[in-house]
Each structure stands twice: as structure tokens, then as C-alpha cells.
């Protein structure tokens, strides 16, 4: 990208292209670079969902959690959700809503999971200022 930018600037200094044209070319290059990570992500589909819980300071003793779940296992598990009896689904839904999560398990699809994976780049949450919870795909 650096080389391309240099070439465009050289062309401007040589008078081969105008400033407006150079601007358009540079914008096109930046747009291309910005869209690259997403295409890479789609090409290299993540295989695992990783959940890490670590104490905020390394020296501090505390609970450490390192869970790696294959994405395909989650997909397979999602299919089971449709077999949960209706009355149980309602109870689970109500419990989730109480916690502020409006999720209907019966309507979850593998496409929803894909969307979640794409949007879940690197989630990091601090719990009570003591532990750090990291959720990401790899």
C-alpha cells in the first residue's frame, strides 16, 4: 500500500494526474485495505470459540478459565434447541429476558451464529474490577 501511495504522489508531482484524481485513487486504496480483514475472516473461518477468564493482575491468585469450544459443536448444539419442549423454551426465554437478553432459542439458526462470529472480533469485559473475561474466535 505504501508503494502504491508513493507512485500516486509521484504521478501528481510529475503532473501526470491531477490532485482530485490522486485523491480518488487514494480513497479507493484505503477502501480496499479496510475491506480486506473482513474478506480474510470469511475465507479463514474460525474453528473455535475461546473464553478466557484471568485475574486482572498477573500476581493475583484467582480463578482462571480457559475454554475452547469448536464452532461446529455449537452449530450441532443449536439444532438441539429446536427439540426443547415449548413450555421449557418459555421458561428459558423468561429467565433470559429477566437477565436482559431477549433471545428466542427456537428461532436461532446457524446463520445467526455466523453473524455473531463475524461481529465477535475480540470481546473483553472486566468483571467487578478483578477479573478480565475475553471472548474471541480463533
Amino acid at each position, binding site marked *: 500500500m505504501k508503494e502504491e501511495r508513493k507512485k500516486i504522489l509521484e504521478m501528481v508531482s510529475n503532473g501526470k494526474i491531477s490532485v482530485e484524481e490522486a485523491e480518488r485513487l487514494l480513497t479507493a486504496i484505503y477502501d480496499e485495505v479496510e475491506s480486506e480483514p473482513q474478506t480474510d475472516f470469511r475465507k479463514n473461518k474460525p474453528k473455535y470459540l475461546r473464553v478466557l477468564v484471568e485475574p486482572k493482575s498477573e500476581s493475583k491468585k484467582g*480463578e*482462571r478459565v*480457559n*475454554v475452547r469450544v*469448536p464452532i461446529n*459443536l455449537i452449530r450441532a448444539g443449536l439444532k438441539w434447541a429446536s427439540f426443547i419442549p415449548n413450555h421449557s423454551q418459555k421458561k428459558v426465554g423468561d429467565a433470559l429476558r429477566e437477565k436482559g437478553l431477549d433471545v428466542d432459542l427456537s428461532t436461532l439458526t446457524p446463520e445467526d451464529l455466523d453473524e455473531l462470529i463475524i461481529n465477535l472480533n475480540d470481546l473483553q469485559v472486566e468483571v467487578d474490577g478483578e477479573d478480565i473475561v475475553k471472548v474471541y474466535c480463533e
Partner: protein
Amino acid sequence: MIPMLLKIKIPRKNKQPVNLYLPLFIAWLILLPILILFLPFYLVMLMICMSKGFGRLALLFFPMFFSILWNLRGLKVDVKDEGHVIYLSFI
């Protein structure tokens, strides 16, 4: 692919935990003939379930159960607390 080994850690007091590898492939070798023997009974059960209205669940139970089993490879659970270790890894 189906997991072949299950690695577990057994904690010991004031010592390093013991790594234990359980050969799951032996369990699969034992389970396979049992499943083949069970197949005719499953088909009978399926027909009964179809007539009772549970057909979809009975029909999809085994494929979905095996899809879970097949995708277990790579699952790792590692929880450490003071003096406690829970470690499971499907290899």
C-alpha cells in the same frame, strides 16, 4: 472427526497434576457392534414413535447425537482455582 483420546488432569496435593489419556477409540470400537445390533430395535421404535407423533424427534435423535459426538474433537475445558484443577481435552 470423532475424538480419539480424552486427556484429563488429576490434581494431587502439593504435586504436579497427573495427565491421563483415555483411549476413546477403544470405546468406539466396542460401541459400534452394539449400535449395529441395536439398529433393528431402533427402526421398530421409530415406527412406534411415528404413529404416536414423536417421529421427528426419534428420527433426528441419532444423527444429531452423532453430530455432537463428531464435533467434540478440539473441545478443551481448563479451570484452575486455588488447589482445584478441572481439565478436559478431547483430542
